[in-house]
C-alpha cells in the first residue's frame, strides 16, 4: 500500500482524537479529523495549568502541543465546526456525510471515535443553586478563571479567602444513572486547591468528599503534603444556601464532633463535576454500530468493535488528559497493525524485558505475540517468569546499558556468566515489592489478600474481615479485588466486614461492585486512625474493636474467623540500582520513572526505554494491558524511524575538543562515544532540545557545523525580545492570539527548541542590539521534555544578572505553560 492512500476518519479533535491523528499520520495514513467545536483541543484546551513553583503533572499543556503538531501535518485535513450527519459502510469503506461550511462526503477505510466527555451539568441538581450564584462554580469554570487569571478579580485581593470544594457532583450516583467514579475529580480538586494556595497564601480550603481517591503516580505523597494545608471533610453537601452571610455562600454539613449539623460560609464553592459521555456519543455510536454501556460510554473491548471502527479517550470512560493521549496512540497503533498485520512481523528488533513477576510475563507474552523477539531477564526475585514457558535468563542482573534506541547493548550477569546482547528497546517491568506481615500474635488468624484469593472456596470460613488502608492509602487493585471477594462471600450468606479509611472505587465498574457489596450486607467500618484498631484472639476467632468514623468514633466490636490484609506495596529493592544503570531518576516515592508528563505514561527521556506495571505506577489488570498496548505503539513508532527530530545538531569534527560536556549533560542519552572518544549525536535518540549546542564550551555543535544559528538580528527593533520554548512559551503566544489577547507591537517572539538551547551569548545579543528587555519563556520545572534542560537556562539568566547587575525588567526567565496565555501576556508589557 502506498503512503497516505489509506484514509481514516477521526471523529473528535480533543486530546485523544489529536493523538490518534498524529500517530496515524506517522504511520503513513491519511487522516480526516472532524470536530464539532470551532477549535481543536476539546476539554483539555480549556483546562488551566496547575503548576505552582513547579509542574504538578496535570497534563493540560499536552493538548496544546498536540494541536500545534497536528495542525501543520500535510496529510491531516481538519474540519472544524463540522457535524456528522450519517455514517454508512459500502463495500468495506465508510462514507460519512458531514456538514460544516458546506455539506461534504468523506470516504474512509476506518473510523476512530474520540468524541470525548462533557462535564456534568450541575444545574440538573436544583438544590445546588449554581444557576443563581456566580460564587458557585464548577471545576470546569474554575479552570477558565485560573487560565484567564481572573480569580483575583472575582475573590478580591483578600488573602484569606474561604473556598469549598464539593466532590462527586454527578458521580457515584445511581439515582442520576451515574453510578461510577469519574476517577479524575479528586486529583483535579487537589491540584486546584494546591494552585489556589499558591495564588492566595492564606486561603482556607475545605474539600468535602465521599472517599478521596488517592491513587496513582506520586499522588500519595502529594495528597499527604497537601492534607496539612487544606481541611478534608468526609461527607458531601447537596445544598448550598445564599445570602445567609453577606457575600458568602453557605454549606450545611455534619459537625463531626457532636450530633449536630453546622453551617460554614465560603467566598466560593467549587462543584467537582463528574465526566459523562459527550452529547453526540449516543447518536454517533449508533451510526458506527457500537452498543454503549449503561452509562453511555463505549467501554467495550477493542475486539468487540465492528471491523474498521476504533475508540479512543474519554468516550471509553473517564480518563485523564495523559491517559486520553495514550489511548489515541493505542487506537492508531491497533489500526495500523490491523491493516498491515501480515507484512510487519518480520524484521522486528529484539526487546529486553526486565523483571520476573506477573507484569513481566504479560509484557513478554504480548510483545512476542506482536512479533518482537524478547530477551527476558529474570532477576530471580519472582518466579512467575520461570513457570511461564517464556525463554529467559535466570538470576539475571543488569550491569550496564550502553548505546541508544534501536542499538542498545545490554551487559548482564546470569548465574556466573557475563553476557552481552544487542536489543532495540528495553521494557522495565520489575514490579513492586509486596510484603505481608501478620499483626502481632495473629499469624494463624491473618493472611494476605493475595493468599486469600488463592484459597479453595470450600476452605473459606464463614466470617471474614478485610482490613484495607492498613499501610496508608490502599492500592486500587487490592481495593477492587476486596470488593469483588466481599460481595461474593456475602452472597453466600457469610459474614463480611471491611475496615477502611477511604473506599477506592477507581475504575468504571468499581462503584457498582461497592454498591453490590453493601446491598448484600457487607459492613464497611471507616477508621481514620489505624492505631485505633484493637485485635484480640478469642479462641478460634479474632475479636476486632474499631472506632467508626461514621458514628463519630463510636467503638464497634465484631468477630471473624479470618483477617485478610493486602500486602504493603513499596518500590522493589533493585529499583535504585537499576535506575542508575539506566541513567534514569526515580519518582518522589522511589518508584521508576519521573512524574514528568512529557514522557508519561510509559516512556522516558531515553528513547526506546519503557516502563510497565507496578514498578512505575499504580495499575490494575486493565491499566497494564493499556500500558503494553502503548508500549507496542511506542516500539512501532521507534522502529518506523519516525520519532527522530529530523534535524539533529552535529558536532564539528574540527572544533570539538572532546571535553565530553555534551555527552555528560544530554538529558536523552543521545550522544555516544565513538572509538576515539569522539562524541556522536544519534538522530534516533535525539529530541533536538539543543542543550548541547548551548553548553559546548568550544561552540563546536550546531546544525550545519556552524555556530549559534538562532536568529537574533532583531530586525523589527522590538523592545521586548522573547525566546519562547516551542512546547510552552511559543504555544502560550499562539493561544493568546487565538483568544484575542494583545501582545503589543514591540514584542518579538523567537521560538526555540527548548529554553536550554538559549546560551548566554544568545541571551545577550538582543540586549546589545535594540531590545530593552529579554525574556526566556520556558517550561515549568519538572515539565521540560528534556529533564533539567530548562533549568540550565534559568542558571544562565541568574549568572548574567549577577555578572552584569541587570534588573528583572531587563532579563528574566518566565516559567510558563502552553495554557497560560494570560500569564505570559501580563509578563510582556
Amino acid at each position, binding site marked *: 500500500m502506498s503512503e497516505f492512500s489509506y484514509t481514516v476518519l477521526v471523529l473528535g479533535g480533543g486530546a485523544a482524537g489529536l493523538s490518534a491523528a498524529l500517530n496515524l499520520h506517522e504511520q503513513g495514513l491519511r487522516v480526516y479529523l472532524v470536530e464539532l467545536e470551532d477549535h481543536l483541543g476539546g476539554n483539555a484546551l480549556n483546562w488551566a495549568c496547575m503548576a505552582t513553583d513547579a509542574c504538578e503533572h496535570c497534563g493540560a499543556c499536552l493538548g496544546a502541543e498536540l494541536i500545534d503538531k497536528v495542525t501543520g501535518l500535510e496529510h491531516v485535513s481538519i474540519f472544524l465546526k463540522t457535524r456528522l450527519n450519517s455514517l454508512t459502510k459500502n463495500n468495506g469503506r465508510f462514507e460519512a456525510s458531514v456538514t460544516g461550511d458546506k455539506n461534504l462526503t468523506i470516504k474512509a477505510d476506518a473510523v476512530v471515535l474520540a468524541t470525548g466527555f462533557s462535564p456534568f451539568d450541575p444545574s440538573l*441538581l*436544583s*438544590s445546588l443553586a449554581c444557576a443563581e450564584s456566580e460564587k458557585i462554580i464548577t471545576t470546569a469554570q474554575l479552570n477558565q478563571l485560573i487560565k484567564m487569571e481572573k480569580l483575583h478579580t472575582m475573590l478580591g485581593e483578600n488573602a484569606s479567602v474561604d473556598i469549598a470544594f464539593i466532590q*462527586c457532583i454527578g458521580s*457515584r*450516583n*445511581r*439515582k*442520576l444513572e451515574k*453510578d461510577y467514579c469519574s476517577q479524575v475529580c479528586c486529583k483535579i480538586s487537589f491540584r486546584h486547591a494546591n494552585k489556589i494556595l499558591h495564588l492566595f497564601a492564606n486561603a482556607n480550603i475545605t474539600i*468535602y468528599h*465521599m472517599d478521596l481517591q488517592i491513587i496513582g503516580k506520586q499522588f500519595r505523597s502529594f495528597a499527604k503534603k497537601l492534607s496539612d494545608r487544606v481541611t478534608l471533610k*468526609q*461527607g*458531601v*453537601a*447537596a*445544598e448550598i444556601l445564599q445570602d445567609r452571610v453577606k457575600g458568602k455562600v453557605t*454549606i*450545611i*454539613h*455534619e459537625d463531626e464532633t*457532636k*450530633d*449536630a*449539623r*453546622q*453551617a460554614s460560609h465560603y467566598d466560593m464553592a467549587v462543584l467537582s463535576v463528574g465526566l459523562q459521555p459527550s452529547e453526540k456519543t449516543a447518536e454517533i455510536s449508533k451510526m458506527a454500530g457500537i452498543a454503549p454501556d449503561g452509562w453511555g460510554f463505549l467501554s467495550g473491548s477493542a475486539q468487540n468493535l465492528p471491523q474498521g471502527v476504533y475508540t479512543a479517550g474519554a468516550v471509553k470512560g473517564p480518563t485523564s488528559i495523559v491517559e486520553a493521549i495514550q489511548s489515541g496512540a493505542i487506537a492508531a497503533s491497533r489500526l495500523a497493525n490491523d491493516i498491515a498485520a501480515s507484512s510487519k512481523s518480520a524484521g522486528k528488533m529484539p526487546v529486553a524485558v526486565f523483571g520476573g513477576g506477573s507484569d513481566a510475563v504479560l509484557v513478554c507474552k504480548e510483545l512476542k505475540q506482536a512479533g518482537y523477539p524478547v530477551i527476558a531477564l529474570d532477576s530471580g526475585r519472582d518466579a512467575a517468569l520461570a513457570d511461564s514457558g517464556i525463554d529467559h535468563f535466570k538470576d539475571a542482573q543488569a550491569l550496564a546499558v550502553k548505546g541508544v534506541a534501536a542499538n542498545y547493548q545490554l551487559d548482564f550477569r546470569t548465574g556466573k556468566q557475563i553476557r552481552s546482547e544487542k536489543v532495540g528497546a528495553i521494557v522495565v517491568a520489575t514490579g513492586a515489592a509486596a510484603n505481608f506481615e501478620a499483626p502481632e500474635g495473629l499469624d494463624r488468624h491473618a493472611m494476605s489478600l493475595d493468599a486469600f484469593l488463592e484459597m479453595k472456596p470450600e476452605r473459606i470460613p464463614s466470617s471474614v474481615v478485610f482490613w484495607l488502608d492498613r499501610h496508608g492509602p490502599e492500592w486500587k487493585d487490592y481495593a477492587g479485588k476486596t470488593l469483588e471477594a466481599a460481595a461474593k462471600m456475602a452472597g453466600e450468606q457469610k*459474614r463480611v*466486614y471491611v475496615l477502611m479509611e477511604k473506599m477506592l472505587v477507581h475504575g468504571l465498574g468499581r462503584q457498582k461492585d461497592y*454498591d453490590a457489596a*453493601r*446491598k448484600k*450486607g457487607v*459492613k464497611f467500618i*471507616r477508621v481514620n486512625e489505624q492505631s485505633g484498631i484493637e485485635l484480640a484472639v478469642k479462641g478460634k476467632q479474632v475479636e476486632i*474493636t474499631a*472506632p*467508626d468514623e*461514621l*458514628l*463519630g*468514633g*463510636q*467503638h*464497634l*466490636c*465484631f468477630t471473624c474467623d479470618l483477617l485478610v490484609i493486602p500486602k504493603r506495596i513499596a518500590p522493589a529493592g533493585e529499583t535504585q540500582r537499576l535506575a542508575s544503570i539506566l541513567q534514569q531518576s526515580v519518582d518522589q516515592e522511589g518508584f521508576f520513572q519521573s512524574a514528568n508528563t512529557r514522557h508519561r505514561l510509559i516512556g522516558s527521556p531515553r528513547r526506546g526505554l519503557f516502563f510497565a506495571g507496578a514498578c512505575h505506577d499504580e495499575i490494575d489488570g486493565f491499566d497494564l494491558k493499556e500500558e503494553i498496548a502503548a508500549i507496542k505503539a511506542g516500539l512501532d513508532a521507534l522502529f518506523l524511524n519516525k520519532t527522530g527530530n529530523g534535524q539533529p545538531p552535529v558536532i564539528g569534527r574540527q572544533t570539538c575538543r572532546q571535553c565530553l560536556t555534551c555527552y555528560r549533560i544530554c538529558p536523552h542519552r543521545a550522544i555516544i562515544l565513538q572509538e576515539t572518544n569522539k562524541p556522536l549525536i544519534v538522530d534516533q535518540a535525539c529530541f533536538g532540545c539543543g542543550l548541547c549546542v548551548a553548553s559546548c564550551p568550544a561552540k563546536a555543535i550546531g546544525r550545519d557545523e556552524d555556530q549559534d544559528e538562532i536568529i537574533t538580528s532583531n530586525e523589527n527593533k522590538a523592545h521586548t525580545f522573547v525566546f519562547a520554548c516551542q512546547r510552552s512559551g511559543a504555544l502560550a503566544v499562539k493561544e493568546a492570539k487565538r483568544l484575542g489577547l494583545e501582545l503589543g507591537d514591540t514584542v518579538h517572539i523567537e521560538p526555540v527548541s527548548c529554553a536550554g538551547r538559549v546560551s548566554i551569548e544568545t541571551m545577550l545579543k538582543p540586549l546589545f542590539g535594540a531590545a530593552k528587555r529579554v525574556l526566556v519563556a520556558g517550561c515549568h520545572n519538572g515539565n521540560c521534555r528534556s529533564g533539567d534542560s530548562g533549568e540550565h537556562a534559568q542558571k544562565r539568566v541568574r549568572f548574567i544578572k549577577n555578572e552584569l547587575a541587570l534588573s528583572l525588567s531587563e532579563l528574566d526567565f518566565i516559567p510558563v505553560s502552553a495554557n497560560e496565555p494570560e500569564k505570559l501576556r501580563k509578563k510582556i508589557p
Partner: protein
Amino acid sequence: MGKAFILENTPLSDALRNCEQGGNAAECLNCGICSSRCSWFEGQSGPVPRKIVRLAQLGANDLLANSSMLWQCMLCNRCTEECPVGIRMDRVVCKARSLPQAGSLIPEDIKTGVKTRLEVGDVNGLTEEEFVETVEWLSEEFADEMGDPNAVIAYNQKNAKFLYLPNPRELGANVLHLTAMAKLFHHFGQPWTLSSKHTDVTNWGYFVGDDDVARKMAHQVVQDAEALGIDTLVLSECGHGFFVLKTLIEELIGRKPAFRVAAIAQIVLEMTENAIIRFDPDKLPEPAAYHDPCNLGRKSGVYDAPRKLLDLCCKQVIELTPNRRHAICCGGGGGILQDSTSKKLRMVSGKPKADQIRATGVKYLATSCLSCHRQLTELCKHYELEVQVDTVASLASKALVSN
C-alpha cells in the same frame, strides 16, 4: 468514647436490606448528602440523618432505639430527596420506631391516640353518638347559614358520589373548617356524605412505624367506604392521611380499593375545571404563598393541584424558595405536632420555615394540611411574623361565588 458496641446481624438490618421501596439502609454510601438537607435548623442538636441510616445499616438496633433522633425526625424526606441510592428516610425511621426497644420513646399522646383510634375509630375518642350529635347540630347551622333548607351535612348516606373523611379537629376545635368544606360540597351539586363509623383521616400507625396498626386503621376506612358504596373518598387536608390512604394504600392493604381517593383540593380543582363552581379572586386580594406539605408534595407528588386552585382563588400567588421537591418542612411533621409536650422542640425544628416565611414578606400563607396549618400558625406567633395562615380548601370556600 463509651463502651464498644457489639455488632451482629440483626432482624432490623435484614428487614431494611430486603426492603426495596426506599428502606434499603444497607446500601447507604454515607455520602452525607442527607445531613446537608435536613429541614431542621442547623447548629441545634437535632437529627443527623446520615447517622440514623448508618445505625440501621450496621444493624445497631440498641443504639438506634435509644436515639433521640428517632422522634425528632419529621419524616419529611427532604433529606433523602437527593439520595444517590434511593433511600427514603421515613421508611428507615418508621422501621426503627417500631423496634420493641424503641417503645419507650413513643410520645404518650401518640400511644394514647393510637389506642383510642383503634378502639373508637377516632383519634380524639369522639364516639359515634357524639359524632351524630355534632354533625346534626352543624347541619342545622349550615342550612341557616346557606339560607337553604336543602343544604345539609349528611352522614352514612349510601351510594353518594363523595365520602368526605375529615380531620378529627374538624369535629372538635375547628368545626368551622368542616362547615367551609360543606359549603364547597354543597356547590358541587352532587350527593356527598360523612360516615359516623370512621370519622378520622389520620393514621398514627404510620408515625409509630407499626404496619399492622396502620393497616388496621386503613382497613377500617376502606371497608366502611366500600360498604357505603361511594364513588370517591375525599380526604380532608391532612398530609400524612393522604400519604397513607392514597400513596401507600395498595402496598398497605395489598389491593386497590373499590373507590377513587382524592384530596379535597384536587376535587375542588376538578369541579372548577369542569365549570361547576367558580371563584372571585377579588375576595382574596392580598398576595399569598403556598407551603408544600411534605406528605402531599415530596412524598406523594402532588404539587400542582393546590397551586392551581390557589391561583384561581387568590389575586396573586407567590412562591416560597425553596419549594416543591425542596420545600422546607413546617417543623411539625412525623408525629411531633401530635405530641403535646413538643412545643419548644417544634419552634426550633420550624425555625428554617419561619426564616423562609419572613424572607418572602408575605402576609398570607396557604397550605393543604391541617397539621402544617397549626404548626405554621404557632410558628408565626412565636417568631412574631404577622402572617395569617389558612388552608387552600378553606380559602377556596371563602372565594367561592354562589351561582
